[in-house]
C-alpha cells in the first residue's frame, strides 16, 4: 500500500491533473503532498541514469524528481513538486522518461552505469574526437539522453513585475526564529519585512499539532503597521550594500505571474532554517526513500501518510520527532538509530508512542519491486563504526525515512562573503559572523525554544545596529540543543565482500552523482572540493549544495584520508533556488524594451504621410511616399526635388551642446582638431572631434552666437557621447571659464535645402536673408514664424541650404509655414533616406564612416587636423600606426555597369586578387538620381591617391553578388561647391 490521506485532515478538495489523470488534492497541499496522498510513488526519472525517483523531501532540498507544469506557452520544466503550491486545475507531468514513466527505455543507462561514471562522456567522446563532427553529433544525442525538462519554444505570455523596495530589517524566513526576530525589531519601531518562500507562513510551526497558536501569532504580527509579511516570496540572493533579490510568486489570477523586489534593506536577518540531509547507502534513491523531517511534515502539516509501513533510519535526535509523529498517526514505525545507545528520554517517548526502536542498526541496501523499482524493503545490519555494516537481515518497508543530520541554510550569509565554519560537534557548517545576522536553525540552534531566543537576540542586535534602541543585547541561544550528540555518519559501506553487490549509493540524486563518482574524481586528481564539484557536477545548478553538498565533501575528505574537521564548503551562488528568467526581463520587453523618442515635428510628419525608421531610440521620418512609391522611388524623387527646387527635412535629432563663458572659444579650440578660436561671431564652421586615442569621435558644426556663446551640433548617433566628452574635458580644465550644457531636446530644427531654399527662409522669417546678410556659413538669431529662431546657412546636401532651429512649442507653426512655402516653390518634405542619398553624392561622412576606427586622414581630411595647435587626441593620433600611408582611406565608387547594385559592407579587392579580407570595404551606398546609378563610399588601402580611376571588385560574401567598380575621389557631384551658392 502506498500513501494516503490521514483521517481528520479536513480541507477543501482541489482538482488537478498528473500524467493526464484527474486527481484530487487538498487545499494547502504542495503538489508533492497531493501526489503522495493519491498513492503516487514514482514521480520521474533521474537526469542521467534514468532511475525511478519519488518524493524525497518537503522543501527546496528536494532531489528526487523534477516535474513539468502547465501546457503550451505556459510550460515550465524542472520544478520541484515539494515546493509547488497545489492550485485548482494545475496540470503536471513527469519528465525525462520515454515512452512512459514506469517503462522508460533510457533506464538501460542504469544497466550500463559503469559507462556513465562522472567524466565518461568527455573522456570517451571528446578526447579522440574533440572539435570534430563526430563529437558534435554525439553531443546532441548525449544532451538529449541526459535530459532535463524542455522549455516551451513559445514566447512567455505572462507578465512580470519589478519594484524597488526599502525596509529597515529584512527577515528571510518565517519560522520560529524569523517571527521572533521580526517581533523584536518591530517593537523597536523598525520597518520590518518578513519574506517566506513557502505559500504558508510559519516554517516548522506549520507542523505543530495545534495550528491555532501560529495563526494567533501571525495575526498579531500582521496587525503591526510597521511589519509586512510576504508569503510566496523567496530571498534568492544578497548583493552589495544590503540589496536583496526577492522573487514573489503571485497567486493565480493576478495580473503578474511573479514580481522581483529589489529590496534595499538596512539590515538582513537570515532565519532560513536548516535542511535535513540523509546519509549514503546502497540504492538510497528509490521511490519511498525520503528525509525523516519530510515524512513528519507530510503527516503533520499535510495530513498525508506517505505509506503505512515505515522504517526511520537516523543518526541523530531529530529522527525521533519523525518516528513519534508517524507512530502517533497510526503508522507502523521501526526506528534504526545508528548510535550504539539511544538518547534515553527520546527513546522512552518513542517507545510510548509505539515505535519499534532498534539502536545500533543502519540500512545497508534497499530492495525494490521488480517492476518499477519502488521501495519494498531493506537489508539492515549492526553499525560496526565508521559507517561499516554487514547486511544481516531484511525489513519490509514502503517508506524509508532517513536522517543523517542537519545543514543550516547558510546560503545568504555565504553570498554576503561571511565565511562559514565547520562544527565537528554538530556535524554541520555554521554561518560566519558579519553584517548579515543568523538565527534559529540557520545558526545551528535546533530546539524550538532556542530558535525563539535566538530570533529575539538577532532582532535586538538589528535594532541596536540601526540605533533604534538603547537596550542591551539579549542573551543568544547556543547552537545545538540535542539530548545526545549525532553520529558522524556519512556513508554506510558494506563490511567484507558484498555478495549481491552494494548497489548504487547516491550523494546527489538530482545530478546522479554517487559516492564512487566522488572517489573517482579524487583518484583522477580532482582533490579540491571546487574541482570535485566541477568534475562530478555535485551540488550544482538547481541544487546549490542543498541535497548532497555536505555529504559529498565528507566522502571526499574521507577518501583523502583526512577527517572531516577541515571541511570548507564550496561557494554558494545566487539564486538560492531557481527563479524564472522572466523576472529579470520584467516589464522591459516588447514595447517596454526601450523608450521611444519622437521629435516635435512627429505629428506633422506623420500627417504628411511619413514612414518612420528607428535611429537609435528616435523615430525619424524615413520617406514620404506618394501612391505607388516604395522606399527607393520615393527617396530618389525627394533627393531629385532637393537638387531641383527645395526640400524640408526634420533635423531635430542632431545633438546640440551649448558652450558658454569667457574661455568658451579657447575650450573649443582644444576640443576640435581644427581651429575654433578664430571663428568670428555670426559664423559657423565644420569641425572634427577626436577621442583621446586619436580616433575620430564625431563631426559637427560650431556656431558662434556671441563672443562667449557657442552652439555645437553633432550627429544624432553620437549626440550623447559627444556631450559627455565635452563635459568631461570641461571638468579636467578647471582653469577655463566655460560651461557645457546639452540642449538637444531644447531646440528642434528643419533643414531647408535646394536652390529655392532662400525663398522659403524669407517666407518663414520675413527678414533679409540675402547672401550679404546671411552668407554661406553665416549664423543669425532672428524670428521664424514669430518665434525666436537660430538660423545657420549650412549644407549637408551640397545645395544652398539653411538650418532653422526653434523651441519645440514653435514646431507646428514652423513646419506648416515651411511646407507651405516649399510647396509654392515646387518642393516638399524629404526624409532620412533622401538625406543619405544627397550626402553620399557629395561624399559627406556620417556614422557609417565615423565608425570608431578612423583618423582624420582616413576620412580624407588630414588638413582638418591642425598642426599649429594642441588638441584632444593629437598626441595619440600621431602614433606611427595611425600615420601609415597604407591605411584605408575614404574613396568614391561607381559601378562599371550602371545597373549593378553594390551592397553596403561589401569587401573591396583589387581585380585578380579577390580572396581574403581585401583592402577595404564599402561603407555607404545610394541610388543616386543625379548620377542614375548606385554609387558608394568606402575605404581602400591607400585611398584615392592609390586607386583613382582604377577598378576594384566589391564582393558581398552574404549575397554572393560581386560588383566591379571604378574608384575615385569621394565626391560625385559639384566638386567645387558651386551649388552651395546656387
Amino acid at each position, binding site marked *: 500500500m502506498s500513501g494516503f490521506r490521514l483521517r481528520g485532515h479536513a480541507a477543501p478538495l482541489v482538482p488537478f491533473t498528473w500524467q493526464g489523470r484527474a486527481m484530487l488534492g487538498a487545499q494547502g497541499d504542495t503538489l508533492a503532498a497531493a501526489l503522495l496522498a493519491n498513492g503516487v510513488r514514482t514521480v520521474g526519472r533521474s537526469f542521467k541514469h534514468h532511475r525511478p525517483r519519488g518524493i524525497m523531501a518537503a522543501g527546496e532540498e528536494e532531489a528526487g524528481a523534477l516535474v513539468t507544469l502547465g501546457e503550451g506557452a505556459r510550460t515550465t520544466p524542472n520544478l520541484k513538486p515539494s515546493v509547488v503550491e497545489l492550485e485548482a486545475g494545475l496540470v503536471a507531468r513527469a519528465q525525462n522518461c520515454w515512452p512512459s514513466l514506469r517503462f522508460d527505455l533510457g533506464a538501460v543507462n542504469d544497466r550500463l552505469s559503469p559507462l556513465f561514471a562522472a567524466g565518461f562522456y568527455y573522456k570517451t567522446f571528446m578526447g579522440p574526437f574533440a572539435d570534430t563532427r563526430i563529437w558534435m553529433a554525439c553531443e546532441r544525442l548525449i544532451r538529449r539522453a541526459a535530459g532535463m525538462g524542455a522549455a516551451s519554444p513559445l514566447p512567455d505570455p505572462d507578465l512580470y513585475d519589478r519594484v*524597488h523596495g526599502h525596509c529597515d530589517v529584512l527577515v528571510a524566513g518565517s519560522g520560529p526564529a524569523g517571527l521572533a526576530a521580526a517581533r523584536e525589531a518591530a517593537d523597536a519601531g523598525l520597518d520590518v519585512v518578513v519574506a517566506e518562500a513557502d505559500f504558508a507562513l510559519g516554517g516548522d510551526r506549520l507542523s505543530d499539532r495545534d495550528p491555532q497558536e501560529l495563526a494567533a501569532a501571525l495575526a498579531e504580527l500582521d496587525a503591526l503597521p510597521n511589519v509586512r509579511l510576504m508569503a510566496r516570496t523567496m530571498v534568492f540572493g544578497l*548583493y*552589495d*550594500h544590503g*540589496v536583496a533579490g526577492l522573487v514573489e510568486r503571485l497567486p493565480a489570477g493576478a495580473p503578474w505571474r511573479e514580481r522581483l523586489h529589489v529590496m*534595499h534593506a538596512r539590515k538582513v536577518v537570515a532565519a532560513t532554517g536548516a535542511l535535513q540531509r540523509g546519509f549514503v547507502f546502497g540504492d538510497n534513491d528509490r521511490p519511498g526513500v525520503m528525509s525523516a523531517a519530510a515524512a513528519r511534515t507530510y503527516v503533520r502539516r499535510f495530513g498525508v501518510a506517505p505509506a503505512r509501513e515505515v522504517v526511520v533510519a537516523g543518526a541523530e535526535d531529530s529522527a525521533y520527532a519523525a518516528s513519534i509523529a508517524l507512530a502517533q498517526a497510526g503508522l507502523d514505525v521501526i526506528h534504526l538509530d545508528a548510535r550504539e545507545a539511544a538518547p534515553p528520554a527520546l527513546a522512552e517517548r518513542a517507545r510510548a508512542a509505539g515505535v519499534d526502536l532498534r539502536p545500533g542498526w543502519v540500512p545497508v541496501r534497499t530492495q525494490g519491486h521488480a517492476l518499477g523499482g519502488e521501495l519494498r524493503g531493506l537489508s539492515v545490519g549492526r553499525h560496526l563504526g565508521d559507517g561499516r555494516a554487514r547486511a544481516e537481515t531484511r525489513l519490509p518497508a514502503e517508506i524509508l525515512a532517513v536522517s543523517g543530520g542537519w545543514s543550516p541554510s547558510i546560503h545568504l550569509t555565504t553570498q554576503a*562573503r561571511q565565511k562559514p565554519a565547520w562544527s565537528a560537534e554538530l556535524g554541520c557548517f555554521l554561518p560566519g559572523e558579519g553584517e548579515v545576522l543568523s538565527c534559529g536553525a540557520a545558526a545551528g540552534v535546533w530546539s524550538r525554544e532556542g530558535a525563539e531566543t535566538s530570533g529575539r537576540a538577532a532582532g535586538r542586535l538589528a535594532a541596536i545596529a540601526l540605533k533604534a534602541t538603547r537596550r542591551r543585547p539579549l542573551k543568544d541561544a547556543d547552537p545545538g540543543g540535542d539530548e545526545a550528540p549525532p553520529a558522524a555518519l556519512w556513508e554506510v559501506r558494506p563490511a567484507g565482500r558484498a555478495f549481491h553487490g552494494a548497489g548504487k549509493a547516491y550523494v546527489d540524486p538530482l545530478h546522479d552523482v554517487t559516492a564512487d563518482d566522488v572517489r573517482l574524481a579524487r583518484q583522477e586528481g580532482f582533490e579540491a572540493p571546487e574541482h570535485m564539484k566541477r568534475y562530478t557536477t555535485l551540488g550544482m545548478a538547481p541544487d546549490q549544495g542543498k541535497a548532497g553538498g555536505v555529504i559529498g565533501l565528507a566522502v571526499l575528505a574521507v577518501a583523502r584520508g583526512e577527517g572531516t574537521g577541515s571541511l570548507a564548503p564550496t561557494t554558494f551562488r545566487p539564486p538560492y533556488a531557481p527563479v524564472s528568467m522572466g523576472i529579470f526581463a520584467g516589464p522591459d520587453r516588447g514595447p517596454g524594451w526601450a523608450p521611444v523618442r519622437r521629435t516635435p515635428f512627429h505629428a506633422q510628419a506623420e500627417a504628411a504621410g511619413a514612414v518612420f525608421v528607428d535611429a537609435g531610440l528616435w523615430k525619424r521620418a524615413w520617406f514620404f511616399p506618394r501612391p505607388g512609391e516604395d522606399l527607393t522611388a520615393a527617396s530618389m524623387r525627394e533627393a531629385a526635388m532637393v537638387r531641383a527646387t527645395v526640400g524640408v527635412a526634420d533635423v531635430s535629432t542632431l545633438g546640440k551642446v551649448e558652450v558658454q563663458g569667457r574661455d568658451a572659444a579657447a575650450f573649443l579650440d*582644444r576640443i576640435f582638431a581644427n581651429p575654433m578660436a578664430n571663428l568670428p561671431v555670426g559664423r559657423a564652421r565644420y569641425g572634427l572631434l577626436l577621442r*583621446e*586615442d586619436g580616433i575620430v569621435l564625431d563631426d559637427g558644426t560650431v556656431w558662434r552666437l556671441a563672443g562667449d556663446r557657442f552652439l555645437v551640433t553633432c550627429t544624432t548617433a553620437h549626440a550623447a557621447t559627444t556631450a*559627455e566628452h565635452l*563635459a*568631461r574635458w570641461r*571638468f*579636467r*580644465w*578647471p*582653469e577655463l571659464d566655460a560651461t557645457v550644457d546639452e540642449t538637444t531636446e531644447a531646440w528642434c530644427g528643419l533643414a531647408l535645402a535646394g536652390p529655392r531654399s532662400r525663398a522659403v527662409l524669407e517666407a518663414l522669417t520675413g527678414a533679409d536673408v540675402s547672401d550679404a546678410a546671411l552668407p554661406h556659413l553665416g549664423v543669425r538669431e532672428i524670428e521664424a514664424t514669430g518665434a525666436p529662431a537660430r538660423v545657420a546657412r549650412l549644407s549637408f546636401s551640397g545645395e544652398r541650404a539653411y538650418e532653422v532651429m526653434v523651441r519645440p512649442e514653435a514646431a507646428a507653426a514652423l513646419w506648416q509655414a515651411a511646407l507651405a512655402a516649399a510647396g509654392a516653390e515646387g518642393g516638399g518634405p524629404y526624409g532620412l533616406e533622401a538625406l543619405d542619398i544627397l550626402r553620399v553624392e557629395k561624399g559627406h561622412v556620417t556614422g557609417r564612416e565615423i565608425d570608431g576606427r578612423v583618423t582624420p586622414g582616413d576620412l580624407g581630411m588630414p588638413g582638418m587636423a591642425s598642426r599649429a595647435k*594642441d*588638441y*584632444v587626441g*593629437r*598626441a*595619440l593620433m*600621431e*602614433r606611427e600606426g595611425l600615420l601609415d600611408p597604407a591605411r584605408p582611406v575614404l574613396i568614391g565608387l561607381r559601378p562599371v555597369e550602371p545597373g549593378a547594385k553594390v551592397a553596403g559592407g561589401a569587401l573591396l579587392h583589387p581585380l585578380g586578387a579577390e580572396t581574403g579580407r581585401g583592402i577595404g570595404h564599402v561603407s555607404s551606398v545610394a541610388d543616386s538620381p543625379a548620377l542614375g546609378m548606385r554609387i558608394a563610399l568606402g575605404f581602400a588601402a591607400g585611398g584615392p591617391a592609390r586607386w583613382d580611376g582604377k577598378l576594384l571588385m566589391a564582393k558581398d560574401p552574404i549575397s554572393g553578388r560581386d560588383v566591379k567598380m571604378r574608384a575615385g575621389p569621394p565626391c560625385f557631384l559639384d566638386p567645387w561647391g558651386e551649388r552651395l551658392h546656387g
Partner: protein
Amino acid sequence: MRLTCPFCGPRDVAEFVYEGPFSGAPQTERPALSAAPAAWVEAVFLRDQPRGETRELWRHLHGCGCFLDVLRDTLTHEVRAVAFADPADAAAMRAKP
C-alpha cells in the same frame, strides 16, 4: 548598489557612470595636450588594478550631471565616501541658501 550623490542623495548605481581612477585633482587627470605620445599611452591605455581602498571618478550622468569623487573598497565593495569632484560644484553647494 547605491551611491549617495552629495547633490541628489542616495541613488541607484544605474544612474551613474564610472569615469576611471581619480587622483583628486581634475587638472592632473590627463597629461598636457602637448605631452609626448608615451605619456598619453600611459594615461589612456594602462590601468592599475588596486586591491582595497581606491579613489574613483564617477558622474551622476542621469541625475545632476556632477562629477563625483568616490572612495571605494574594491575588496568589500564598500563605498566609503562620495564628494563633489569639481571644487566649483562644492562651492556652489555651499553657497546654496
